[in-house]
């Protein structure tokens, strides 16, 4: 029996194990698994590696629209206009286990082979801060594990959030969010509140349906804006093409930039009092506590919101 293996959370130390490899080979032969004989094959045997580099290029080029987009939203943002698109940093809005969340894969891994040894998608060290934090937490539990990158564990550890995991319905999560565990003392209770997710509906004028966004995953206005942009860019593209038609046929890059340059839309939210306010006027914490839903509004309709927001702020302070 092989010695017990450490499996840290994100599989960084994952090596294809000799024992596992062997057994899968023998299984191959035992079952007479002749995948090669199968009629249906790609014709690109074994050698294909997921072309992550290319993919990242493409993603980055989509993101190059952003400089234009800033103008539409940044007026509403606190601190005015400094809106950096968090492209390569692993992104707050992507879960840890999203393999395409701006992180990079181990280059030469052949994901389709039986010996890839992947228990899950892998993020490189440099990608984001969150994996390191999580690793530290895990080390408290696993014997003899990875130590010492110098990060001290926070008093109430919470994991970076993966979309849809654990598999709990949103209405359960929203219930728990407003009632922290009675078993915990105050410190933990606060931390627990901080770790709950908070889905709010987002509507966009002219879009055929609503989306939902998790405010807890976005840690700041910047991340929220980029998440929304990703979500709704398909609508601005969709306006120019029909279903199923690739963007090559319809929209061109310059067209999208035009739409966003024109500051056609602003981001607003409905607060607990039922008033509509411009996003960005209040500190992030206050915003997440009072935001009930979001609306990407046409700029023409948003006139008159700003003064009300300022009044409210003044009344609060």
């Amino acid at each position: 029996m092989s010695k017990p293996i450490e499996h840290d959370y994100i599989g960084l130390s994952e090596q294809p194990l000799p024992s596992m490899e062997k057994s899968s080979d023998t299984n191959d032969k035992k079952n007479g698994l002749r995948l090669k004989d199968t009629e249906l094959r790609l014709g690109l045997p074994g050698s294909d590696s997921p072309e992550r580099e290319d993919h990242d290029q493409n993603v980055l080029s989509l993101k190059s629209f952003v400089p234009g987009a800033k103008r539409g939203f940044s007026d509403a943002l606190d601190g005015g206009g400094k809106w950096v698109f968090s492209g390569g940093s692993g992104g707050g809005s992507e879960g840890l286990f999203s393999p395409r969340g701006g992180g990079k894969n181990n280059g030469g891994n052949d994901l389709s082979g039986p010996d890839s040894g992947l228990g899950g998608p892998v993020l490189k060290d440099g990608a984001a801060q969150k994996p390191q934090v999580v690793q530290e937490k895990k080390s408290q539990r696993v014997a003899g594990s990875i130590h010492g990158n110098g990060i001290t564990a926070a008093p109430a550890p919470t994991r970076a959030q993966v979309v849809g995991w654990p598999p709990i319905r949103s209405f359960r999560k929203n219930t728990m969010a407003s009632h922290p565990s009675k078993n915990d003392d105050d410190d933990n209770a606060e931390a627990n509140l901080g770790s709950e997710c908070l889905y709010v509906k987002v509507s966009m004028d002219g879009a055929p349906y609503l989306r939902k966004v998790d405010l807890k995953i976005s840690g700041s206005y910047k991340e929220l804006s980029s998440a929304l942009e990703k979500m709704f860019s398909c609508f601005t593209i969709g306006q120019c093409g029909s279903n199923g038609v690739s963007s090559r046929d319809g929209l061109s890059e310059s067209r999208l930039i035009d739409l966003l340059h024109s500051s056609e839309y602003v981001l607003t939210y409905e607060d607990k009092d039922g008033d509509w306010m411009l996003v960005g006027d209040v500190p992030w914490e206050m915003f997440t506590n009072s935001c009930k839903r979001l609306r990407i509004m046409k700029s023409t309709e948003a006139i008159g919101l700003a003064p009300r927001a300022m009044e409210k702020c003044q009344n609060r302070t």
Partner: protein
Amino acid sequence: MHKKMAFSFPDEVLEHVFSFIQSDKDRNSVSMVCKSWYEIERYCRRKVFVGNCYAVSPRMVIRRFPEFRSIELKGKPHFADFNLVPDGWGGYVFPWIAEMAGALPWLEEIKLKRMVVTDESLELIAKSFKNFKVLVLSSCEGFSTDGLAAIAATCKNLKELDLRDCEGDDLGWHWLSYFPDTYTSLVSLNISCLGSDEVSFSALERLVGRCTNLRTLRLNRAVPLDKIANILRHAPQLVEFGTGSYTADLRPDIYSDLAGAFSSCKELKSLSGFWDVVPAYLPAIYPVCSKLTSLNLSYATLQSSDLIKLVSHCPNLQRLLVLDYIEDSGLEALASICNDLQELRVFPSDPFGVEPNVSLTEQGLVAVSSGCPKLQSVLYFCRQMSNEALVTIAKNRPNFTRFRLCIIEPTTADYLTLEPLDVGFGAIVQYCKDLQRLSLSGLLTDRVFEYIGTYAKKLEMLSIAFAGDGDLGLHHVLSGCESLRKLEIRDCPFGDKALLANAEKLETMRSLWMSSCAVSFGACKLLGQKMPRLNVEVIDERGPPDSRPESCPVDKLYIYRTLVGPRFDMPPFVWTMEDDPSLQQLSRANLM
């Protein structure tokens, strides 16, 4: 002449015989005996079940069964429950309502799951079906209380309005007042999912008061505790009741009022609700506990000791939903008290914390599997598991039909041996020969899939996350699980080979979901081309998949069998892999 007559019954006789056959499977078998039975059966089929609304068109269903009275439709894939399916994906019910409105004026029942139901759809239902009786919306969205008001105002014969786990938009509770004063036929009302802080209590009380056949009433959180007594007094015949917010200042008059009201409910078998529960008010329900068969405490933040006290009053429980505050000690108590328990669901109180906040481990599940001989359905969230425990559980309870285990941290190993949990889950499928549904978690290699492919012959639904080593795992499942209908996979290193090698299997299943796996766009295209009776849908919010190399993995993949080809209501981020490249040009031309 005489010989012929001896072999055939008049149609009416056959119809009468068929009317005793209710199950879809049996009905389908009957219709395949011979042509005349097919014809007779199709005219007298009253209930239709469509497991995937995109597998068939409403017109086809109506053409085959022109006289049905009840339809059940399902839309989005199951993982939509966990926000893995982007909004706008589809599942619109309106086209179905529109077709049925003209052709089936006597339709009585509509049951929908994971579909988008607009107010327009609800209004059309209200307008079109004069004898409409039952509306069940399970995990649906897209409607507001405006649509509900239309139903309330128009459906004179409505018996059941059940909105379980829906996301409705509240524009107020005034919709309840749209039930006319003459309306008295309500039997079941479930509005537990609605939000809204404005509640028209008087409208609710009057409605409850005049509907003397009311059996099921599930209120929402907005209904305060001190209103419940009145409502219960108006409906002492209730069999199923869901409270609202179970909290109030501690006042003896409220308590005695409540306790008295509960005591007068001699038929109560099922309780739910209990949001914001204050333990001091729990004893008010003790009078009804001994008859309870179903108890949903999954919103009740009670400590283990309070839970044990409550459960000890309910020896006849068959179904329990509870938070993990119950802890191992509570489950041990449950195991000794509730010998009739058939279904148990334990939800996590702190799903995102890394350290356990309660003392709930695999031991609780072991205890219940040992003490409850009728236990067949389990959903269990915990933070640690061992192969040893799973083997014990499997041997204790070979009668499991549904086993869903969620170890909260992905790829968690056996905490005793640090090995994968392959052997443990292997024991589950080996001993539980009637297992229909299985959800896996923890650290798992391809070995567990070998076990599943070998033993899980009755398995119909399998959910996999963060597991496996490669294509071999998926191949085991697809080639071995003969009864498999639904397979959903996320974050596993399964790629093209197993999928393509088992392409024909996919036509025997309802659907396959794969997200964050390693299936390339090229493979999807190939599959779409070769299998015309499958819709291969690529869901990718990054942009069109053909803007990336063909070997690039797709983000999400949903494959389902269908008789009607690609659908036309896809949002911009969903692409169907077409049957034939030449057809692709044609269909594009049609769209232009």
